């Protein structure tokens, strides 16, 4: 069995209550930090651990904390991004509903490290029951003296606020999240200034993912170096992967970074292989926004090396032959899946979720969706394929926030790797527009 950091006690009955969580070593990190460490030492441990942002970008968390501006007399804020809405990603949801105290302990430790006296957990509005679980857990922690005024008699105050979002994907972008938290329309801000300088209420703010923060108690208890020893290269620690699609055992798995994709996909410990009688066609490795990979590039990189579940290995060959670890939404397609239909579906999502602030994304996502809809329903033209590639190029990199890139990459990569399928949809409009019609690749069949 691989080592578990986040999900070790997740199946213990009653772990969502304070007492059971405490019995299993909970809140020892808070005691250690408050009683024996300075904030600088906590930041140093985070830096040593090399833990990278689990929300998708993979930016080292310790470094992000190091960028936080610390002007005198201005409050600092920690905001936990629990607005997990990426299609194919459901790890934070699982973590928060099963073991809420882990996140709260992480929030206390992280807030102490950053010197924040008021911290926020921004949860997507659809997860109202999770919000109630978190609020109950916060009440329990407060009653035991781990939250509120004068924590454990140290003089450090921390107020933790759970804020439900309105149900917009864009509010998972950190500056849009801050706007939404301030009570405004969730439009991403222009950067610079970055949140580390001017974030929530124009004060220095750190925004971290649920999973990143939940790693902190273990890092404090066992040391940053012990955390850095897990994993491979610069991808340290463990990662939650939400596996879905045509596999035998969909679900949330905690893996040590560096496990091979082949093992993760086929071993019984994890996904358990493709469902019976079918074979692998494509894989989206990190949530809907990362490029899709065709079967021959999934377990081996273009150079013939084994592909590993790590930030570096998955992005090997950049976008030509690689993808990204992203937020860990592992979506597997077998040969019954239609790539054109799937791309249209992703595109429809980004069209629906674009905030409409900057023109390339507002107009481009809708345009791509309409063209893909046409192709899927048998009304495509050959020049539409090149048109899609061109639109995606024009959106990518020209928008305020990464939603434009996220909308462009799936389309561009689907055409890059599955162009023949798009061509088939156009040359065989009648067959392609039948319900459930799939182009079967002669080479793979």
């Amino acid at each position, binding site marked *: 069995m691989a080592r578990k950091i986040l999900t070790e006690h997740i199946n213990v009955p009653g772990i969502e209550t304070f007492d059971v969580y405490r019995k299993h070593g909970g809140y020892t990190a808070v005691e250690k930090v408050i009683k024996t460490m300075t904030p600088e030492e906590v930041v140093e441990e985070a830096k040593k651990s090399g833990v990278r942002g689990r929300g998708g970008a993979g930016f080292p968390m310790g470094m992000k904390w190091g960028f936080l501006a610390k002007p005198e007399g201005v409050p600092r804020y920690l905001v936990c991004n629990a607005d997990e809405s990426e299609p194919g990603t459901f790890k934070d949801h699982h973590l928060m509903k099963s073991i809420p105290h882990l996140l709260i302990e992480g929030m206390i430790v992280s807030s102490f490290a950053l010197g924040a006296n008021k911290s926020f957990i921004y949860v997507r509005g659809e997860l109202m029951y999770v919000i109630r679980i978190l609020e109950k857990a916060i009440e329990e922690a407060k009653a035991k003296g781990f939250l509120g005024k004068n924590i454990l008699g140290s003089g450090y105050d921390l107020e933790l606020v759970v804020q439900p979002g309105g149900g*917009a994907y*864009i509010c998972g972008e950190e500056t849009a999240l801050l706007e939404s938290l301030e009570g405004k*329309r969730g439009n991403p801000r*222009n950067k610079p200034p970055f949140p580390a300088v001017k974030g929530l209420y124009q004060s220095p703010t750190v925004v971290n993912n649920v999973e990143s923060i939940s790693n902190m108690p273990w890092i404090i208890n066992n040391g940053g170096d012990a955390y850095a020893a897990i994993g491979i290269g610069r991808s340290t620690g463990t990662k939650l992967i939400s596996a879905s699609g045509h596999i035998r055992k969909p679900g949330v798995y905690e893996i040590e970074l560096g496990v091979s994709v082949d093992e993760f996909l086929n071993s019984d410990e994890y996904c358990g292989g493709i469902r019976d009688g079918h074979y692998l066609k494509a894989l989206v490795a990190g949530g809907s926004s990362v490029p899709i990979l065709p079967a021959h590039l999934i377990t081996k990189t273009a150079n013939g090396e084994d592909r590993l579940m790590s930030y570096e290995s998955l992005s090997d060959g950049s976008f030509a032959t690689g993808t990204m670890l992203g937020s860990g939404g592992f979506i597997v397609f077998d040969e019954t899946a239609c790539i054109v239909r799937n791309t249209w579906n992703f595109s429809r999502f980004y*069209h*629906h*979720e*674009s*905030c*409409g*602030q*900057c*023109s*390339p994304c*507002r*107009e*481009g*996502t*809708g*345009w791509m969706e*309409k*063209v893909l809809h*046409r192709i899927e329903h048998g*009304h*495509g*033209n050959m020049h539409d394929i090149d*048109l899609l590639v061109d639109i995606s190029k*024009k959106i990518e*990199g*020209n*928008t*305020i926030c990464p939603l434009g890139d996220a909308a462009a990459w799936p389309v561009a990569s689907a055409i890059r790797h599955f162009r023949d399928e798009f061509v088939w949809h156009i040359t065989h*409009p009648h067959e392609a527009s039948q319900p459930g019609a799939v182009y079967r690749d002669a080479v793979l069949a």
Partner: protein
Amino acid sequence: MEEVKPQLIKITFDGIEVEVAPGTTIMQAARKIAEADESQAGLVPPAMCYYKPLPSSGGKCRACLVRVAQGSAKDPRPMPKLVPSCITQVQEGMVVENTTNDAVLETRKSIVEFLLINHPLDCPICDQAGECHLQDFAFEHGSAKTRYEEERRTFDKIDIGPNIQLHMTRCILCYRCVYTADQITNKREHGVMGRGDAAEISTYISNAIDNEFSGNVIDVCPVGALTDKTFRFKNRVWFSKPEDAHCECDKCSGKAIVWYRGDEVIRVTARKNVWGEVNEFICNTCRFDRKKTSDWVLEGPTKVKRSSVISANKYRANLVPKPDFAMKLAATQFKPIDDSRPYVTDTETIREQSIENNDKANHRSLLSQNN
């Protein structure tokens, strides 16, 4: 005590060096170049959403994206992405490429395309035509054809109060009117609702804007989405004659432009500077109610840019002829013609070829019908 002057920052914009105060944006630096030398006006990045008198506007339309080839003298790396020039501040030794960079021009062309795909292109019946920023932008940077074949989004027209009509179908969501309502008027009653290309400027449950300065949203609107109901369908702007005028007004500066058709005042607008921005907003009384010449003290004809269609058929004393303009235009339009084909005089061959061409054309049209 001697006054301390702030250290000026030197940047290079399209190969031209300019010194500006710290905190200036790239756009303002470019405008400074153009203000010093009128022949360089073509260098300035276009602005569809940025509006200098409205703080925190800009960065949304992406029309002004430029490439920063060198971030600063200290850190000479180029910036990885194109940056919006309207909100990016200059740094010492920055090198900016605008019209000299093909990627920037290509991106700008695509921005025109994006802005136009959901625009109704109803210029022939739009009151803004002739003074529309989107028309200028598309004319200067866009291509003549569209690749968009899908349905365009449409909205119903909404009356915002008795004097303003909102035609959301034409809107490019620049947010200028929202900032105006937020900053100029003391009570904001409208904003953006919905998301993505379904987002719309709206008053909450169609409230009428009841504010003395609400009329300024008409002037800041770059397109014909917000129009003056007292002027709608009265006249084309290029048939009207703008005159600078002022009046004694206790609410605003009273400085305005009065637009004439014959002897009749057909509309009143605020004065715009050379970049199409209003610096002194006017009140609704001046804009909608003072529609008689006797209400105004005329100062003389408004100076209109020669490139503007409003200047057509109007007398200007200090007209500067530009003889090389036609040649420049011709040079960009002409392409070498492929005349390597044999010259055919035989009538029979010509007949055959024309039949063949006809067949091809018929075949193509059949193909497109089948699709």
